[in-house]
């Protein structure tokens, strides 16, 4: 059993901030926009170093998306930053027409996704953003799992030609993937080999999946753990080749079970290899205030829940 070391808890949004700072220095075409949440998005370093390439648009997310689209004309690579809800649901039609359908090279970077934003509560805790963005033709959808990976993804998407949605979060979580890794869009990362059950996790739940695999291992169950950082394009092959071995699968995401990663996986299975699947996800409810840990526990989004669902799906093989 492979073990992963947490090199220290740190927020994924800081990975974005660190990546953006590097891009600011290395790529003069990178520009950044923010809608009155510069500190929360950790965009201050970029802003301070490159004030001319930083655009404060105020509390006007729709306008921000349009401006970002326009900035691509002339060769800029705009990174927008705001909370995940205001990066997606608030501006869906603007992203749809001015960015996705117009084929603009905009990077939509979204913090405070999911329940783990904590105390602000449901109005801010979007649990639908992966679904929203995955339905847009041409959109790449990424949900990174820790600081290192978020930093790497931020740097990588600047080189990808086309619109990208990059989702990360607020809480301090385990940082365990390699430092200065390279990030390959669309390529799932197998973290743990196993033959009994496949666990496909994204975002903050990847670490939880590893923890779950440990517990399962102690109970004699060999779980395969896949970090599916890219929700779209989905790495069908990685999923299918794993379930062909294990015969059952658990998906884990900080998202409504409707419309997100889980249903995308169900579709791949139904199209290619029908397989029992269980969902670690919110059950079509809004979130609420609380600490990240309390919420993950209450809404069943942690290692414990992954263990339970793994056992449940094993029985359904």
């Amino acid at each position, binding site marked *: 059993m492979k073990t992963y070391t947490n090199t220290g808890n740190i927020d994924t949004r800081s990975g974005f901030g660190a990546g953006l700072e590097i891009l600011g220095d290395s790529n003069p075409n990178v520009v950044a926009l*923010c809608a*009155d*949440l*510069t*500190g*929360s998005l950790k965009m201050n370093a970029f802003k301070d170093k490159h004030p001319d390439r930083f655009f*404060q*648009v*105020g*509390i*006007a997310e*729709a*306008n921000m998306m349009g401006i970002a689209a326009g900035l691509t004309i002339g060769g800029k690579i705009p990174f927008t930053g705001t909370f995940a*809800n*205001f990066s997606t649901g*608030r501006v869906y039609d603007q992203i749809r027409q001015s960015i996705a359908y117009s084929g603009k090279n905009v990077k939509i970077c979204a913090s405070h996704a999911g329940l783990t934003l*904590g*105390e*602000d*509560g*449901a*109005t*801010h805790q979007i649990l639908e953003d992966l679904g929203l963005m995955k339905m847009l033709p041409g959109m790449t959808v990424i949900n990174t799992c820790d600081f290192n990976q978020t930093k790497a993804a931020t740097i990588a998407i600047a080189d990808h030609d086309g619109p990208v949605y990059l989702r990360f979060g607020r809480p301090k979580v385990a940082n365990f993937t390699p430092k200065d890794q390279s990030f390959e869009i669309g390529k799932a990362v197998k973290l743990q080999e196993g033959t009994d059950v496949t666990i496909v996790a994204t975002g903050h739940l990847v670490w939880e999946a590893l923890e779950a695999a440990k517990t399962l291992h102690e109970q004699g169950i060999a779980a395969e753990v896949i970090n599916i950082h890219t929700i779209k394009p989905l790495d069908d092959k990685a999923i299918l080749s794993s379930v062909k071995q294990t015969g059952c699968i658990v998906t884990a995401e900080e998202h409504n079970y409707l419309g997100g990663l889980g249903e995308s996986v169900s579709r791949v299975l139904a199209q290619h290899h029908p397989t029992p699947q269980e969902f670690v996800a919110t059950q079509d409810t*809004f979130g*609420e*205030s*609380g*600490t990240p840990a*309390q*919420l993950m526990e*209450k809404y069943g989004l942690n290692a414990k829940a992954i263990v339970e669902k793994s056992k449940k799906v094993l029985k359904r093989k």
Partner: protein
Amino acid sequence: MISSLITAHKNVFVAQLLVYFCTKRYKMTTSSNLQEFVTQVRRDILRQVHKVNSGHPGGSLGCTEFFSVLFKEVLRAKDHFDMDGKDEDLFFLSNGHISPVYYSVLSRCGYFPVEELKTFRHINSRLQGHPTTHEGLPGVRTASGSLGQGLSVALGSALSKKLNGDKHLVYSLHGDGELQEGQNWEAIMFAAANKIDNIIATVDYNGQQIDGSTDDVLPMGDLKAKFEAFGWDVIEEENGNDIDAVRNVLAEAKSKTGQSKPVVILLKTIMGNGVDFMMHTHAWHGKAPNDEQLEIGLKQNPETLGDY
């Protein structure tokens, strides 16, 4: 009904007198009594956000006088809260992040037990980080938190009142930074075009938002000129943290309702008002005081009505 009489009546003085006698939930207080209320609300704000180390004290403190006057003296609400709010005045908070002041004032006006302020932003609480109807908290008729939506909802309820022949008024509160959201201008245009004159919107004109002053973030120019160009009746009040001034401006606003124009109050307030180190800065927009800072803040606002 006396209350509908009042609405019909446009004379400020008489209206104020009538309010004095028939506010249902609470009897009219003197300014000094209300000052005690305000001081207690400030304590409640500080203690709520401190306990959970999150939430928005700055805007809350700045709007304490407004909430206190509105709920204690102006809003004619029925004794029992129901969602439909027929035959009573309504209030909508659009800038939902200032929930601490809203919760404190609601609880101290009897909407729910003051004790419940302890649960602010806790799990399984009705006192969510941003106000919501979802958990059934009395006093709240719409969720807010995602900025820019409250005016539209308030206008809808004002139209509902017109359809119902209900002469009561709709009040709403909005952040100044919040006005950067375009939906507000859709609503502002709509209200004037449709002569919605049973609404009094107030803008918390504190000149601050998250990333700095509004002038640093996105200078909004002359707000009065903007509202006027959009066909609203605009009242400016420089002293939004003065109880008498708030009382007078709300009375003046009321006297301007029913005249085919929506009414807005541009209420200059001081973010963080009443806690010296929090004043005149955006720094405390969404940051809780630590233990030491709490103590200083509470010392500046001694207990008056009893802490929860």
